[in-house]
């Protein structure tokens, strides 16, 4: 393994870093596979995530019913109910819609919300962090105080406040989730920039007169990628849960869009009598988040060498 040691300015500790550019491609794949084999929780997580992605992509072909189709003669029917229009494996909701088909349709939107808003947050946060770290001095200081201020208002509180005021549709919600969760990326990126700036090859590049932009993209960004991927994975989970919380508070995506959060939220007033309405989307969201978190943990082990070797 090719590693070198660096000083983490955020914690004052030293740590070992892998410069992945130095690894040959084939051994990189083998390395990933070996790491996955060693991590049973990671295997489980990967399986879950792959399954959810499978459902997301093939959703329309898997769903037995149209997720929006009402059947007012079959409202609040328990799992296994069947009538002329078919069998409802996981029961029906307050409008007689098929829960299974809705869970499947919800996967698509929930995953979409999670992934896209994380990408938005990532782009904002990484650019912000790069800029702040590179600028240094007063601007850096000020930019970090802005980040502190955003961090000081708890994520959910901020999202709730913004979407409460703006009123969220699907796209608005994604943007809101994106623009409120960029801070962590910015801080991580900045820390990496500060660390990288001190490293020999960056110093060398600077001495050779390469411009900052080039240094940023060629030398620093690749080093940040690992931490950002780890962070982004855990943020996908957080974002999916935030979407559910917003729906619960009535501030999330509105119908006819189907999301797990909205289903949970619709089902909650019937939780004592029509438990299937909230239970199945609840399980879906829990398992998915569980999978994402496990994958995130594994990626952390893989990409963040601080913990590796233990």
């Amino acid at each position, binding site marked *: 393994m090719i590693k070198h040691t660096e000083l983490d300015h955020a914690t004052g500790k030293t740590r070992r870093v892998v410069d992945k550019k130095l690894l040959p491609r084939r051994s990189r794949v083998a390395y990933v596979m070996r790491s996955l084999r060693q991590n049973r929780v990671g295997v489980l997580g990967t399986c879950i995530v792959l399954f959810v992605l499978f459902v997301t992509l093939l959703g329309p072909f898997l769903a037995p019913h149209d997720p*929006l189709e*009402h059947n*007012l003669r079959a409202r*609040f029917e328990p799992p296994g109910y069947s009538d002329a229009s078919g069998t409802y494996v996981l029961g029906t909701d*307050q*409008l007689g819609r098929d829960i299974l088909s809705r869970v499947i349709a919800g996967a698509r939107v929930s995953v979409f919300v999670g992934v896209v808003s994380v990408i938005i947050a990532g782009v904002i946060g990484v650019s912000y962090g790069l800029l702040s770290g590179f600028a240094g001095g007063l601007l850096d200081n000020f930019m970090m105080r802005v980040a502190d201020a955003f961090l000081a208002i708890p994520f959910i509180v901020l999202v709730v406040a913004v979407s*409460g*005021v*703006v*009123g*969220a*549709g699907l796209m608005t919600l994604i943007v809101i989730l994106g623009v409120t969760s960029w801070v962590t990326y910015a801080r991580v990126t900045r820390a990496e920039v500060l660390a990288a700036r001190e490293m020999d090859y960056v110093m060398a590049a600077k001495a050779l007169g390469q411009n900052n932009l080039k240094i940023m993209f060629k030398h620093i960004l690749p080093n940040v990628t690992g931490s950002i991927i780890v962070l982004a994975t855990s943020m996908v989970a957080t974002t999916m849960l935030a979407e559910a919380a917003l729906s619960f508070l*009535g*501030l999330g995506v*509105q*119908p*006819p869009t189907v999301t797990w959060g909205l289903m949970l939220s619709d089902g*909650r*007033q*019937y*939780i*004592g*009598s*029509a438990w299937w309405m909230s239970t199945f989307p609840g399980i879906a969201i829990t398992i998915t988040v569980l999978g994402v978190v496990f994958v995130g943990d594994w990626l952390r082990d893989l990409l963040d060498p601080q913990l590796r070797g233990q």
Partner: protein
Amino acid sequence: MQTVSTYKASLLLAIMLVFTLSCGLAQEESEFVFAHSGPIRTMDAPVTWFGSTHWLTNTLYDCLIWRAPDNSGYVGQAAESWEAIDDVTWRFYLREGITFHNGEPLDAEAVKWNLDRVRSREDFMVHPQWQFINEVTVIDETIVEVTTNDPHAYTLNDISFNGCQLLPPDYLTEVGEEEFARNPVGSGPYQLVEFTESDRYVFEAWDGYWGGEPEVDRIIYQVIPEQASQIAALLAGQVDFVPSVPLPDIERLAAESDIALMDAAPSRLVHLYLRVETDSGAMAETYPDYEPVTLDPKIRQAVSHALDRTLLAEVQGSATPTLVRIASVHAESFADQYVGPEITDDWYDPELAKQLIVEAGFDPDNGDKPKLFFDAMAFQVGNEKEVAEVIQIMLEEVGFEVDLNILELSAYSEQVQRPGNNRDMMMVILGGSPFLTPLFYTCEWEQANYNVCVEEWSDLGKQILQTIDAEARIALWEQWQEIFIDYAQTVSLYEVTGVVAMDSAFEWQPRADGWFTFRDLKMK
């Protein structure tokens, strides 16, 4: 020595006795907890227009008169009796010697002060509803006279409207409005002894009430936002009343022997508003060249006929379909002919709707469909958003193309119910007070959402409000309703009803006005 110790012993005995008694009494104290969905606004009653806050203020304050529980007429509160002197003058005779909780007399001066306050303060939300009063005159200590601007058919209805609550003038002036909001004082059967804003309000029976001390000692309004938690608290015996039971829970609660289920009166009316003009509000600025298809009366009629209101009422959960905009709580005898599934089923006619669309110059079969932007709101509780989805389906079935936009309630009132931000069609929830209803359709009314101006209709509305004779008024109402249905700017859908659950140790009948106030609550 001996006498002293006997004295001591008897004192001890006496103290013990008092303690035992008071403990016994304390256990006897009856307490009634109401699960309120919140939020609850200020106790300075005239300021707010939210009915669910007035359930509480009604416990704390008296009005002059108040709607009878079964809506058969009015009962006196601060006023013992009242009479019409002429078409514009009403006289109210107050009860002798009644006071507020703090001992301040509730006399004619206090009544005048209160009525003047509510009709002159523009920052009060109920302000517009009180402009029918021209003058309030004190005749003597217990007689107060109210004159209206014009002959007014609904004076008694309006004088018992939100904002009618009587506050102690001296106390309020002395402590100021802010302190009053913290420590409100009224003259009703209960005093507010403690509260956390929008969380828990504890009312305690007042022994000085003119009607005698109420039977239940404490009435508590407890805010529990989650309906599932409300039901759980009821089943666990922590609350005694849940105002709205979700459909699937009804069966489960019916099985509990100590819980009584009752049908609640209608609480709100749901309608669609269709745009009939383009030059009011911000419409012209927001969508300068926009021509809504609903300008054509045929299209509006098509919408009205395309909707199966009985089905929509079913989707809502528990509701009565209707064609008109008068709530049954205020119903005068004309209303019956427009309310109920038989009538709306007759009206529902998708074939006619299709035909009307063709007559309006569209050709849905070949893709030329009239397009509707449909704004609707979502409540935390209730199925309004599902209803909107079903409406979309119904309209698309007869050949419309519907672009549905659902927003959470407060964002909705901010963004859609602002002048001109709504385009073709929007869902609205409105009360159905007969006094207010014709006002919305007069040409002078600069309404935030739509200007409706049909000369003949406008005149009819004004005439209704000024016709004191009930029979003549009802004849006018019938004409008015025909135009309402035919013009179809407002397409009425249904009136929301519900099921309430109560601890069966108590005795209470749901009020016809749908209000959850418990000043006459009894123990079984």
